[in-house]
């Protein structure tokens, strides 16, 4: 595995959980798949469509998101929204993330 491939794998590992956190917090306001994809990208959480959609489904199955179909416009869209359980999870994840960031800053070694 070349150095860039190894780097990509490690970066992917590092970022894997942050997509969940970002979705839960962004979906405090109801949003749909593609809109969320764009917003995540704009905010620096690069995600693929084929990762995001299964992720949304999984969170819905776990009860962290609720969904409903919006048939107002020509194209029916499924809107997701963070549930109360999801909000609690988002808070827990954010707190943990801050703790990890602080722990990293406290690490000795090269900067």
């Amino acid at each position, binding site marked *: 595995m070349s150095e860039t491939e190894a780097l990509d794998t490690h970066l992917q590992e590092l970022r894997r959980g942050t997509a969940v956190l970002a979705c839960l917090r962004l979906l405090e306001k109801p949003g*749909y798949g593609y809109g969320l994809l764009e917003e995540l990208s704009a905010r620096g959480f690069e995600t693929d469509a084929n990762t995001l959609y299964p992720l949304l489904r999984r969170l819905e199955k776990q009860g962290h998101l609720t969904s409903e179909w919006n048939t107002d416009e020509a194209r029916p869209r*499924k809107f997701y929204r963070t549930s109360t359980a999801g909000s609690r999870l988002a808070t827990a994840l954010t707190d943990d993330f801050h703790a990890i960031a602080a722990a990293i800053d406290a690490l000795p070694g090269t900067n």
Partner: protein
Amino acid sequence: MNTTSLTERYVDAAMRTVPEKQRDDLGTELRASIDDQVEARVGNGEPHDAAERAVLTQLGDPDKLAAGYTDRPLWLIGPRYYLTWWRLTKLLWAIVPVCAAFGVALGQTLAGASFGEIVGSVFSVALAVVVHIGFWTTLVFFIVERSAHGADAGLVSPWSPDDLPEPRQRGTGLGDLIASLVFLAVAAGAIVWDHFIGFGWTPDGWASFLAPELWPWWIGALFVLMVLEALLAISVYAKGRWDIGSATVNLFLNLTVAGGALWLLSQQQLINPEFFPAVIPADSAQTVSTVVSTVFGFGIVAIALWDTVDAFLKASRARRG
């Protein structure tokens, strides 16, 4: 709208592996998502077809996408059950084909098949057994993997240090030495008893199992070999392990004993011909004597083979350890 558009075909392909009740919901959502992405690209100036193609390419294999949606395992047997499956399969492969081959060979010999037929049927049966074991064990674990919807089926107990394989130098302890010597002594005693008194009761007195002509020279040779076996057992105990030298000596001893016995058996000189008519009614005596001779022969071969292989296995384990 062109009903066989790329998008439609993609959504149809993805929904094939999705269970019925989720299909509409998922299908609509996927179609909307693709349309949104294509629209965004077209808004940036790409032609529609190229945009559609690019979006679908990025989404990837529709079956893979659907599996991500439905949490369907894309493997036969996953890491949770893999070791259990492999250990069980190895164990079955080590035991069952050998037994089956042995049984088939025995049966074919008793039925009077030619050597070529015996070899052919042994080979085909052994191969069939190996394949069947591999298939059915894998199938069972395939089903188990998918049965508990991703939860643990409770098949694999947590590992503890008690599960560690035993230390390598087995079969060389005092217990083994005593067992070997006792066995040899009992065998020698049985042979002597058989000659002087006999094992088969007839109205005329006792009849011996082994042919009387074998005494004294053949039996004497057998006793010499037994003494050598005892010496080998003592040397293995003293050295504390089997090595290739001991295993080779063991091989030669087994070859001599088994070879001699089989040769005598084939000459009808091993078993006392008086024995069977004395012990069983006359009309079935011939069949029984043939059967017993054959079974005896197979038994000799099996024991000799097992003992030799076992010694070599222990030697190779000792060498590695």
